């Protein structure tokens, strides 16, 4: 019934070209040669010349490969049967479970009508003061962790995932090291969360094109759960690998790069995924927590740069701590006005004073005499770093706020903090 072709005109990178008629843009095909068979997707049509991106990679595809068009675009099975399962980027089982082909849903579907979104109002508690006080995470937020290679971003993701009160966790791994994949699997399993988790994992050893599918598949599944009123947390790690896969395809297709080899539509491509984060008016929600590793620790690199413009803030992870400067939760003001009356004040004051501390350490390192004020700042900064910033601290928001007052009172007089008198009267520890 479906058309089958036997002649590949040219092969470049992971893209093959054939001559065929009646083919649809984005249609799937099955490419079979001696070395095996793979799905492929139409990425360009020019007259009867059809370009296909081969999911398993074009390596080993012969010029006489058989190309069978399927008349549909990419789909993935959906249902509660996904829970606890682990798949590849191409949605094939990575665990010992059965191959699934029931209840197929489209991936990369249309975006949510903004009129069907509501303003997010629910705080996601993480027990990490640098998040809960200073950059509160909010349900339906899309937020990446910016870090250079080697920072403990995956453990941070896992920790937040386990602490957050969500119904479903979806892990999308892209270019994940096998060890990291096992780390996620074991951590989720030990904590008993695996049974509410679905994993789509592309490891560094898998074909690059499958890496491109991971966000779309993960988010399509998340969207269906959310439509069933579930609160879904999607973890995407590492989106820089996704962007690099996009770059590779763009270069193969001879697109003119805009910046350091990345295609001009990198922003739109990333946004199409991140904007799936949503709080539905009348259904559940999707929260996206991602990792964007920063090549060369450079935030102006096109991937973190474009990401920052799309996401609702970012957490900078540096030297194993969440940096207060640069880190931002754009949704924090949706929730931090309703937590406790001193929340915003503690947040602003402690950061401003910490900025003062950083300046003072600079002065100190240049050998300047420390004023009385400098000495206070130094004492404050050390305690802030040890008692607030350290990632091993795990306390609820309220306790963290109390701790904030205690640190301030141990280091300063009320007036020096710039806190309105009304609040110091109420909260300043005597």
């Amino acid at each position, binding site marked *: 019934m479906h058309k089958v072709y036997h002649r590949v005109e040219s092969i470049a990178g992971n893209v093959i070209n054939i001559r065929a*008629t*009646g*083919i*649809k*843009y*984005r*249609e799937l095909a099955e490419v079979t040669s001696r070395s095996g068979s793979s799905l492929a997707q139409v990425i*360009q*049509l*020019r*007259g009867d010349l059809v370009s296909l991106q081969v999911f398993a990679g074009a390596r080993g595809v012969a010029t006489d490969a058989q190309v069978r068009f399927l008349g549909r*675009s990419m789909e993935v099975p959906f249902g509660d049967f996904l829970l606890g399962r682990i798949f590849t980027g191409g949605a094939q089982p990575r665990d010992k479970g059965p191959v699934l082909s029931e209840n197929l849903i489209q991936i990369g*579907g*249309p*975006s*949510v*009508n*903004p*009129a*069907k*979104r*509501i*303003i*997010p109002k629910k705080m996601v508690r993480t027990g990490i003061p640098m998040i809960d006080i200073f950059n509160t995470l909010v349900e*339906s937020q899309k937020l990446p962790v910016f870090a250079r290679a080697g920072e403990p971003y995956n453990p941070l993701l896992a920790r937040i995932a386990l602490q957050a009160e969500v119904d479903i966790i979806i892990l999308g791994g892209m270019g994940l090291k096998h060890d990291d994949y096992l780390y996620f699997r074991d951590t989720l399993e030990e904590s008993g969360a695996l049974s509410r988790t679905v994993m789509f994992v592309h490891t560094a050893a898998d074909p690059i094109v499958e890496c491109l599918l991971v966000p779309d598949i993960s988010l399509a599944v998340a969207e269906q759960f959310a439509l069933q009123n579930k609160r879904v947390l999607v973890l995407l790690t590492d989106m820089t690998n996704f962007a690099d896969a996009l770059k590779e395809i763009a270069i193969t297709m001879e*697109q*003119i*790069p*805009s*910046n350091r080899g990345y295609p*001009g*539509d990198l*922003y*739109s491509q990333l*946004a*199409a995924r991140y*904007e799936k984060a949503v709080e*539905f008016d009348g*259904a559940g929600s999707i929260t996206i927590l991602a990792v964007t590793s920063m090549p060369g620790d450079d935030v*102006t690199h*096109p991937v973190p*740069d474009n990401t920052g*413009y*799309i996401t*609702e803030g970012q957490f900078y992870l540096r030297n194993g701590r969440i940096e207060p400067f*640069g880190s*931002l939760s754009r*949704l924090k*003001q949706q929730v931090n*006005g309703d937590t406790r009356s001193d929340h*915003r004040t503690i947040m602003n004051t402690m*950061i401003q004073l910490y900025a003062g501390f950083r300046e003072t350490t600079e*002065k100190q390192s*240049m050998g300047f005499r420390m*004023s*009385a*004020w400098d000495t206070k700042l130094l004492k404050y900064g050390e305690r802030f770093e040890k008692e607030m910033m350290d990632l091993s601290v795990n306390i609820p928001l309220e306790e963290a706020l109390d701790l904030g007052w205690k640190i301030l009172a141990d280091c300063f007089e009320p*007036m020096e903090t*710039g806190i*309105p008198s009304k609040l110091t009267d109420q909260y300043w520890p005597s």
Partner: protein
Amino acid sequence: MSEASGKIVGVNGNMITVEFDGAVSQNEVGFACLGDLRLMAEVVRVRGSLADMQVFEDTALLGIGDIVEFTGDLLSVELGPGLLTQVYDGLQNPLPELAEKCGFFLDRGNYLEAIPRGTPWEWTPTAKVGDKVSAGLTLGQVPEGIFQHHIMLPFAMDGNYEITYLAEPGTYRVEDVIAKVKDEKGAEHEVTMLQRWPVKVPIQAYQERLRPSEPMVTKVRIIDTFFPVALGGTYCIPGPFGAGKTVLQQITSRYADVDIVILAACGERAGEVVETLREFPELTDPRTGKSLMDRTVIICNTSSMPVAAREASVYTAVTLAGYYRQMGMNVLLLADSTSRWAQALREMSGRLEEIPGEEAFPAYLESVIASFYERGGRVRLKDGRTGSITIGGTVSPAGGNFDEPVTQATLKVVGAFHGLSRARSDARRYPAIDPLDSWSKYPSVVNPDQIDLARGILRDGTEIGQMMKVVGEEGTSIEDFLVYLKGEYVDAVYLQQDAYHDIDAATSADRQKMVFGVITDILKASMVFDDKETARRFFHQLTQTTKDWNRVDIEDPQFEELKNRLVNMVSEVTANA
């Protein structure tokens, strides 16, 4: 004109190449047929019998040989009463109605009427039968919310006409005939309240353009006092991500002293539009006592919506602005972010395989940006009244570096530049407009001498601050140290403003004049302190008190009290000369 039709011969992303019969024009709209679905597209290039078209929808499953039907029309919007309070996508589809029809998602191929046909409007003719009229002159009015909406002779009607009929006062719908006019050849034309206008063509049914000279008060102190915007002026807000571009536009859209605000959410986050969309109906406009939504139109083409429609969205927005300007209103158009629109141009240019300019933007980027901002301006209408469009666009430069094509092209054409600085936003000094780099060509709400003084202290204070990092406090004279403290003081209490505080968020022009007067006196005072530590403590306290003052309503008795306290505090440390 008979409409052409064609067949798809190529698909590349959101671009299709169509082989057509008949005549096709640049920017003409056509529909690609996919089964029952009709996907809207616009001609962006014609070569021989091939038209390249950007499709305003996802192109998945379009194939070679699929039919394209051309319409003969340029991409246009509907104009008439009923635009205010609407939330449209970039092609003027009303999003709430789409949600009713399609549910949660923006399924492709659905196009709805922009202006509701059934709404009754209370028509009062203001012209008379026998009057000579031309495009843009008012025939009558209908109340639209808080405004008198002028029903004008449609802009597309060239030449001179005579009114032969005006409907009696009463209730009419937008498609009812409310007037008839006779052209110079004697042919009669019917006029309704509804007209269409191509978005890429400026509306110019006015007498002349005027210089923007009156301030547009935003109630943001650093803007109105230091880097003002004029009614009919243009300005841009470049800044790295997270520096506060969107928040600044949000507060401007709430508090600006204008009649109508058109928000073009162009390729940015949907969540930010949702905030406006959900909050505005609940907020009262202090000018009118009515809901803020009553003066607002939202054009929303967020980052995951189709890229080609993103390009259209800014033109849709500026066309609606032009329509209300023709009624003599002051319209503010806020576009967030113009860089996304430029990127949409870049994506299409890449697919067209045009020769790329810098950072792969097309060579015509500058002229496209210039002609967009040219659509702003203050005008004298044909009946002598004036109207204006003020355009404020954010720019999102790659890597936060202003030395890039979109920022540079924009700076060449705008009248004010509000550059946001990463250093200021990191230090939570909001709004993070850089007081030393920004500029404006428009007049301020306060006296220019006072600004020069404050600016001098800010500049010197910054320099001394830099110097102190090298030589330390002990190497700085107490005089210099005082300049530094004064600079920090103006920054903290005047330049910085708390967007989330009910009172501090919006400072009226009068209050700015008054407060800035007091602050100028403080800056001028020659204070004497025993040592730097005492000086620092004094300024801590002064800052605290002034901030408290900022948070008090001008009508509150505390306002005078705090003002006096400030004056006293300063006189206590001032040398009696």
